[in-house]
């Protein structure tokens, strides 16, 4: 268990301001926050790169606040890989093992094993500069995980990758965590990573931890205006995916029983999170005759006018938020308590 108590650190440009956190063994802990929130310096303080100005870090009830990084058994992966360019992939992955003075054949064995798991076994003799971004990040993660660290720190590990590679590597990270049960702290500013990976999530802002909880808690019940605004994504529902007649449907438990939401494809019988952007919801007073798969009737519970857009909260059994233009809202002629229909195209329903 990693416990951080009242850590403060001032690096001029970035600060940590009285940060306290507890990460349990085997947890996949995600820290999310805007650029400059102090996420990286928090990870580097946990890794022991700098001493904190005040506060303590303890690992499994041992105070490691001023212990040098090499004695902590905490490894770290950066966004831009930081593979040593003058060493081959095999030498990079074996770097830490060599520091531990393991015999060469044992190092080779462990390197081969971990690289096979990540599908980079055929690249071991190559130099990092000849690898694609995804391959480099796989090598960097291999280098960190082969030491079987007590905590693995990932600093935006997927941010530098293109969309498809990012998705694949995200799935591999989940698999890896399931297989190794390593305690992971993962920094991101990507919400999908929070929902697909996090056991718990912390939101950081201006060097402070604003909220900690399960993704569901934090996204559904933001404890501050900053978080409400920052998470921005609304209409987040968890459910089970099912495929009927070639179309996938997600069953979501609502206040009054199950609701079905049609979506773009997903695999059968998996637990998924669906999101619908408020802008993708059409609001009307009568049921629309349209090809859109999703149509829900509901009652308006709240209306918020923020200038150009009007956000309407509608209870259909599931709490929806729809955004319409001010003009659209005026011509709709609806008010709080009235009944409206929400129409959503299946391809506007995102699943992860």
């Amino acid at each position, binding site marked *: 268990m990693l416990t951080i108590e009242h850590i403060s650190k001032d690096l001029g440009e970035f600060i940590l301001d009285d940060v306290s956190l507890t990460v349990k063994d085997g947890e996949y802990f995600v820290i999310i926050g805007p650029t400059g929130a102090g996420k990286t310096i928090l990870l*580097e303080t946990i*890794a022991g790169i700098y001493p904190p100005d005040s506060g303590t870090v303890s690992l499994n009830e041992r105070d490691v606040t001023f212990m*040098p990084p*090499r004695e902590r058994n905490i*490894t770290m992966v950066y966004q831009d890989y930081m593979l040593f360019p003058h060493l081959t992939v095999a030498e990079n992955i074996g770097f830490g093992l060599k520091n531990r003075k393991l015999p060469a054949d044992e190092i080779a064995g462990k390197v081969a094993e971990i690289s096979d798991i990540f599908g980079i076994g055929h690249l071991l003799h190559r130099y990092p500069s000849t690898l694609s971004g995804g391959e480099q990040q796989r090598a960097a993660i291999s280098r960190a995980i082969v030491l079987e660290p007590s905590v693995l720190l990932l600093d935006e590990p997927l941010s530098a990758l293109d969309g498809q590679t990012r998705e694949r590597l995200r799935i591999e990270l989940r698999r890896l965590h399931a297989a190794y049960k390593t305690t992971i702290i993962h920094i991101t500013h990507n919400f999908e990573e929070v929902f697909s990976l996090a056991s718990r999530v912390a939101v950081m802002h201006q060097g402070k931890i604003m909220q900690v909880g399960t993704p569901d808690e934090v996204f559904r019940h933001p404890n501050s205006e900053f978080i409400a605004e920052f998470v921005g994504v609304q209409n987040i529902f968890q459910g089970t995916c099912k495929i009927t007649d070639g179309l996938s449907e997600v069953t979501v438990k609502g206040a009054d029983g199950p609701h079905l939401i049609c979506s773009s494809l997903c695999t059968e019988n998996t637990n998924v999170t669906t999101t619908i952007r408020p802008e993708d919801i059409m609001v009307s007073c009568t049921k629309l005759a349209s090809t859109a798969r999703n149509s829900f009737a509901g009652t308006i519970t709240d209306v918020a006018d923020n200038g150009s857009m009007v956000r309407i909260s509608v209870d259909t059994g599931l709490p929806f938020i729809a955004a319409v233009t001010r003009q659209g809202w005026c011509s709709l002629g609806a008010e709080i308590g009235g009944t409206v229909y929400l129409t959503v195209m299946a391809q506007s329903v995102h699943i992860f």
Partner: protein
Amino acid sequence: MRSDLRRNWVKILSISVGLVLAGFIITLLLLVATHPSPSAVIESLMTKEIQFAIYLSLATSVISTLLCILIAVPAAYSLARYDFWGKSFVSTILDLPLALPPLVAGVGLLLFFGTTPIGDFLESIGIVFVFTPLGIIIAQFFVNMPFMLRIMRSTFTDISPRYEYVACTLGCTNLQAIWRVTLPMAINGFLAGAVITWAKGIGEFGAALMIAGATRMKTETLPISLFLNMSCGELEMAISAAIILMVISLVSLYVFEYFGGSAKF
């Protein structure tokens, strides 16, 4: 004259200036190289005096380059990695020998080793700098150290400290991280810096003249030899020394550019 988009006078004029300058430099080099007959050059190269000058130049410049590396690398690392009180002042002062006339540097060195208690002490234990080859080494070191320092500083600045952070989490001490990661990554800057420092060292004249003097067969490096032989009308000998210096600088410049030196200076 009507202006025409196809005739860019600024471009034509500025390129011409560059070409004329390059032509002037090449002319000078060719003049030096072709002035004596090749047989006379070879004859001079065979003399004891020129061979001594070559030997003394190589020995002093290699030693002064090693000294520069030894001092400039850690100093450059500290300036690239750490913030400390007075850093920008220290940084400026360390570059000062670049702007200082070598003769002034030489006078300073002469006073330091000739008149201060430190100089007296060193002399009492047999380390004499004034009018000896040791003086040449210290002169080359003092004047050329900024070249190594500047190149290493920008080389280290270009290498993200995160490589070292990662190395530390993988079990390295700070020093091991520098030794096993940062220095190998800095190899190009290191070689470029070493070559230019060495080449400048071989050509060092003013400061060396002040502290070590110009004694035939004692403190006679190639530039000193060039100066001495020129003064007493031995043109062939003087130009042979010049040709060697020229070849060394051409090769060094090539190696320097090959390792990307000009981008780091």
